[in-house]
């Protein structure tokens, strides 16, 4: 379903990652561990089409998205969703507008239905009209997840989405996110430096060590 072949990442003229290969089945959740500067976020940004790489190919659902480190398909047309470390919710839009951003092509009624379903799924019914600054960190995180899931992406990328939460909240949320991802059968890649988080959330864990990926 997803295949990443021979990805190499150069950061500030230094090769940080070489020969990265990964393939995932539909609905599979993969966690990528690594120290700061190991290039794990660069992998996500390359898959998303946001940054280019030195080498590498991305194939998603049989479509070639990137070849030789260059992108053949724009980020907006790849069908890839992403949850950022700082959530990056649009501060001038309410929760429902944030979630609806990616499904504006649908009729209003369908949008509304989708928002209601997603809010139910993330357990935040009744906050539709609130703005991001009125929400707690955990709530913002869940809204960011709902926003990324709304267009039903073929692949979801999670870039250290739990790092700014306290331990209690994090444990609870990690379990909840796994449940949601499994419920929606969304193929996902989580980038983190927390091994517990990786083990709880994912089906498969890999680690970048010495510029190479090893899958456990």
């Amino acid at each position: 379903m997803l295949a990443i072949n021979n990805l190499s990442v150069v950061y500030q003229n230094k090769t940080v990652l070489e020969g990265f290969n990964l393939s995932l089945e539909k609905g599979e959740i993969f966690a990528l561990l690594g120290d700061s500067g190991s290039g794990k976020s660069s992998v996500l940004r390359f898959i998303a089409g946001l940054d280019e790489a030195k080498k590498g190919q991305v194939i998603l659902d049989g479509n070639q998205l990137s070849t030789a480190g260059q992108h053949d398909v724009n980020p907006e047309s790849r069908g890839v969703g992403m949850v950022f470390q700082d959530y990056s919710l649009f501060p001038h839009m309410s929760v429902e507008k944030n979630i609806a951003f990616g499904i504006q092509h649908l009729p209003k009624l369908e949008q509304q239905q989708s928002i209601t379903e997603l809010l139910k799924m993330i357990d935040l019914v009744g906050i539709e009209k609130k703005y991001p600054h009125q929400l707690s960190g955990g709530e913002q995180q869940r809204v960011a997840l709902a926003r990324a899931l709304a267009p039903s992406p073929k692949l979801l990328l999670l870039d250290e989405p739990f790092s700014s939460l306290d331990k209690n909240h994090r444990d609870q949320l990690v379990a909840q996110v796994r449940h949601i991802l499994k419920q929606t059968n969304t193929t996902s890649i989580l980038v983190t430096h927390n091994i517990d988080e990786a083990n709880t959330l994912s089906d498969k864990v890999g680690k970048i060590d010495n510029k190479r990926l090893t899958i456990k």
Partner: protein
Amino acid sequence: MVALPIFVVIFSWALPEHELWAHFSQNLLPNLISSTAILLIGVGVGVVLLGTVLAYLVVMVEFPGRKWLEWALFLPFAIPAYVLAFVYLGVFDYSGYAQVWMREVLGLPGFDIRAGSWAIILTFVLVFYPYVYMMTRASFKRQKINMIDAGKLLGAGPIRVFFQISLPLARPAAAAGLLVTLMETLADFGVVSLFNYDTFTTAIYSAWIDFRSIEVAAQLASLLVLVAFFLIYFEKKARGQAKYYSTDIVNRKPYHAKGAVGWLISLMVLSIFMLSFAMPMLQLLIWGWTSVAEEWSAKYIDLIASTSILTTSAALITVAIATILALPDRCKQGSVWLKSVIRLATLGYALPGSVMAVGLLYGVNQISEINNYLGGESINHLIFGSIALLVFAYVSRFMAIAYSSIDASAQQIKPVFTQSARLLGASRQRLIWRVYLPMMTPGILAGGLLVAVDVMKELPATYLLRPFGWDTLAIQVYELSAEGLYERAAVPALIMVLFGALIMSIFQYLDKKSSKTS
């Protein structure tokens, strides 16, 4: 004190001249209102469109030549509006060579550049877009790139990202730039008189010069103050509760325009730079070159000296007062009185320089009369025609620019800095010198430089209040261009532009430095 001219013009309603006012309000007012409104709407739409699009392109898109164009787009700040107006008139007027070429080579009919409002609107837009450009550029630079990336991954193309994410977040900055532009347009006298376009400012001149009625002039001016109040209210409302800024500065471009699209963007941005700066400058240089031998004389040393002295002293005093007004203070937050004082002190920006001058002269005269009545002496001979009065007019007129720049940097001082300094035992004085002022320095410098550019360009108040023998470069430009001596006017205009460009490059250097350190 700074707000004195405003009180004077409002006070003018106490001494109505019914007949003349009736003439003005019945025959001229409706036209004045509609022509001023058309001008404001046209200029407003134009500067917001041009300023935000240009700022967005240089901050968010990588295209060929972006780096130097980003800075080049500030340069029109250095050209006074009336200089650009006389260059355009000189080139596109009926006898200008653009029209001569059109008629003789292309065989097209001529046109009247002064007819309608399009040419004057275009001139104002090209001179004033840098206000919106400067403010929205700073705002775009502080937008989170991740947010734009999130938009992209949710399927939004560049245009949707611009309209639904970046632009709404930059709205307060665009509104602030728009406010300054509209106030500058309202206060302008040079451009509108060169284009023979009637606005409130020209009507104020007419009431005063043609009808010798300082009261009607002041009454018309008070209507301008009203418009200014409305504009300030509108800007505050547009700013709203929003606190959208992130602290990270954009250094990665979310879009890379490659190939033809990239060159097309370069061409578009370059053409704005050519129209607003390079081509007028080239024309000034050509005119200046042909007339410098005739025009240059020792008097230019005096002109440069008096311009420099006035500019420096006015900028220093304005900045000192604005800094005191903008110092963060807990008592200030709740003080309605102080807030009103600041609002009044910064309203002078909407007053045309001429009205400022009239207000001051009128005010001083009233004080003298009261003094005489009480058995004292008139103070007129001490104050009329003194540098002090002129500098005072500049300070009151340009307080808003200095204040908004300094206040913006003061706003970034979080209460936590004050609290931690207090807890470390810092006295109020030490807090000001060691915490506030160093943190406000970029804003203070920027405010001072912007005021200096404006003082150097200022025309009407200087014209009326300057001490004998204190002609400035602006006066020289005005006197020569009013007589149609465009070639000769190019010489002092070029010196002004050179000084303006120098001040702007210092401003850009500081801006670059502060964005590196923040």
